[in-house]
């Protein structure tokens, strides 16, 4: 009798422990994958651990990573934003027009950055309003605006590259702080802010609630439409930040090439990071790790001389693998 009383809690503890493991694995799996990938990469190529290479990889990752952070909010709330790539091009064009329109170089840069953030947010607002007020599916709205934004960028510039001679502009995206590229600071800084917003504020809780079951959210007094709208604005704002980093690094923007396929990289990073495409749950850290995984894979393929035409194949395979593993965990 005594024995059975003693073993029962022990058995219960084991079961409880077993239950906890897959949950933690769900969070840890992308991180483990990243560490493994990092280890393999450093063995596969002697250049990989080179400071300049790492710094370059991080910089490359930042442009899409910043966008992926915004995308995380949209996807958790149950939406999707396909327009972010085209939006980068359009915002980029606006940024350079503002830089070139103002003669004082410092003023020009500051106003251009403001313009990027305002323009990005407004484009996001447009997407969000079409989804919430127009009641059109996010996929359709942003598919349309993807086409619209790219078309506007091409029309304003006549499809020609826009560049600037502003002497300090390139310091923004091309500069370093404590020998780390500025876009990387922006990326990680944004990640921290976004994590706090998502996990530690009522707003973040509401975003998850809306994505998990909008009906329950409505009955709980959450303003569902307002939350959905806000996630698109966040995505647009992140695109604005990314566009500043990208255009200032190159001192120019190509309306046809800028942001090309960024929407896919951003969505891929979110998915690899373990955020459910059906909405309701996800993490910013997962997205950051997802973006890093994609960046390192690209870099490795370049360093080991794999045909650039095969890079898409590898990226696709990684996405499938990540999602397959998630389903396994869910089952």
């Amino acid at each position, binding site marked *: 009798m005594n024995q059975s009383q003693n073993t029962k809690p022990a058995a219960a503890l084991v079961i409880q422990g077993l239950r906890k493991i897959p949950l933690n694995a769900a969070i840890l799996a992308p991180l483990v994958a990243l560490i493994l990938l990092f280890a393999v990469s450093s063995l596969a190529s002697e250049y990989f651990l080179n400071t300049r290479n790492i710094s370059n990889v991080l910089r490359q990752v930042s442009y899409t990573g910043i966008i992926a952070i915004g995308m995380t909010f949209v996807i958790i709330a149950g939406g999707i934003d396909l327009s972010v790539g085209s939006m980068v091009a359009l915002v980029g064009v606006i940024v350079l027009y503002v830089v070139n329109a103002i003669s004082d170089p410092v003023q020009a840069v500051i106003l251009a950055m403001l313009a990027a953030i305002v323009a990005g947010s407004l484009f996001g607002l447009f997407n969000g309003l079409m989804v919430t007020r127009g009641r059109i599916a996010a996929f359709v709205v942003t598919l349309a605006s993807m086409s619209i934004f790219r078309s506007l960028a091409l029309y304003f510039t006549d499809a020609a590259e826009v560049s600037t001679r502003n002497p300090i502009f390139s310091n923004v995206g091309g500069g370093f702080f404590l020998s780390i590229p500025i876009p990387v600071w922006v990326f990680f800084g944004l990640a921290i802010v976004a994590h706090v917003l998502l996990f530690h504020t009522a707003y973040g809780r509401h975003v998850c609630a809306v994505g998990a079951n909008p009906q*329950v959210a409505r009955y709980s*007094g959450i303003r569902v439409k307002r939350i959905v709208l806000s996630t698109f604005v966040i995505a647009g704002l992140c695109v604005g930040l990314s566009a500043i980093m990208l255009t200032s690094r190159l001192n120019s923007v190509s309306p046809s090439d800028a942001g090309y396929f960024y929407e896919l990289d951003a969505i891929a990073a979110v998915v690899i990071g373990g955020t459910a495409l059906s909405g309701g749950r996800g993490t910013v850290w997962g997205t950051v790790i997802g973006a890093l995984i994609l960046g390192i894979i690209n870099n490795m393929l370049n360093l080991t001389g794999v045909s650039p035409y095969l890079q898409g194949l590898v990226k696709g395979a990684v996405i499938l693998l990540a999602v397959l593993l998630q389903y396994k965990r869910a089952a």
Partner: protein
Amino acid sequence: MREPILRLEGIGKAFGPVQVLEDISLSLVPGEVLGILGENGAGKSTLLKIVSGIYTPSAGTIHLDSEALSALDPITARRHGVAMIPQEFNLVSTLRVYENVFLGQELRRGGLLDHGAMRQRTRELLASLEVALDPDLPIERLSVAEKQMVEVARVLVNEARIVILDEPTTVLTDREVAVLFKVVRTLVARGVAVMFISHKLKEVKELCDRLLILRDGQQVELCEVGELSEEDMARKMVGRELSQVYPDKPPAAAHEASPALQVRGLSLKDVLYDIDLEVHRGEVLGLAGLVGAGRTEIAETIMGLRRRDGGALHIDGKAVDIRSPNEAHAHGLAYLSEDRQGKGLQLSFNVMQNITSLSLKRYVRGLIRHAAERRQAEHYQQRLSIKAANLGAPVSKLSGGNQQKVYFSKLLDIEPDILLLDEPTRGIDISAKQQIYQLIRELTEQGKAVIVISSELEEIIGMSDRVLVVREGRIAVELNGDDINEEQIMLYAAGARQHANCERVGT
């Protein structure tokens, strides 16, 4: 005595170290209804899944048509004529009735679908069940009861000989239950054996020939239904004396004289007409009526979930204008939806996140204080005895009764003065029900005003100090004292009796 069609011998099932079913032996003969009773978690669903071939038993043998099988798979079970009508229907909502009836076994002619024959056959089947239903209607336009009939028709197409009904009456009104029972009797007359799972003792008593009672995976009783009274059944199910399911009502007029909530002339286009009601602190007001009478709509309109077209609300004598659930919450109102999983709880959220989802503001000091959330969840876990191994696990893993307790905690956490409870005990077992009834009484004793909406007459009668019967969007009558009985409520709910100006009846 006819040959049994199904015989179970010493069936047991364990998941890892957990024994969920032990040594079940029974036989089922054609043309009988076997009731299966048990609390949530007693092993009813496991037993059903073994009979329908979804689970493999870890001990014992199954004899189907005197063929001994140590294991059964869904296809073999189906070949032997085992069919299950699940709680959540497996119907394709965009397809028509006849398409669903023949789903997976479509009639063909020359390689193409024979729509005419399927339509005709469906019409015949439905007619034989005495159900007036157009075979061409899409499923999404049917009521819950009609969908259930489509499932029954599907079972007939399969020429099933053992039909398992898993809590089929939970979602039905009393009138629809009567239709279902008639259909079950038709099946039985044709020699079909029926396994009927239910929480409701009265229904089992009414419909079943024999009765199996399960408790903690053990077979507690297998006997003729006539041998047990309802009290006996409840006692055997729970394993202890149920002194009384419903707590004592306070003496009449124990509540305060002025109403906590007063509704005047509430109307909602084509749904509600000129609804007057009031509820006092310390009182339980029952809203009875058929499903679709407008009871849920009354609650949702009061809560600002629907835009009212007319009428005024007064809370503690002050006129208030409520346009959203937020404003309702701010005025001390809280609403428990009848649709726990669709409108009440975020199933993927954990216990803590669900409990604080209305009251989240209180836990925010710049950032959410997760530790405070956990403390509050632990408080409710104790107070309402919520059985959850891990407060961090999604609530979808909890049983129905425990989910309902989490839902109650969510409402209680905004400390409401007036609670609108829509089907507060739907789909939960009897001991959880009893705890919830107890809780409702505690709340009124603390001076809260409670409105209970329920399709279970017993619940309305057992809990309400006063009853309003709703019919077709209007208040049909107010019942008091001894007039709160089944007969009176049904008379008004079904419209057999009209009451001029809705006067008070009784004391």
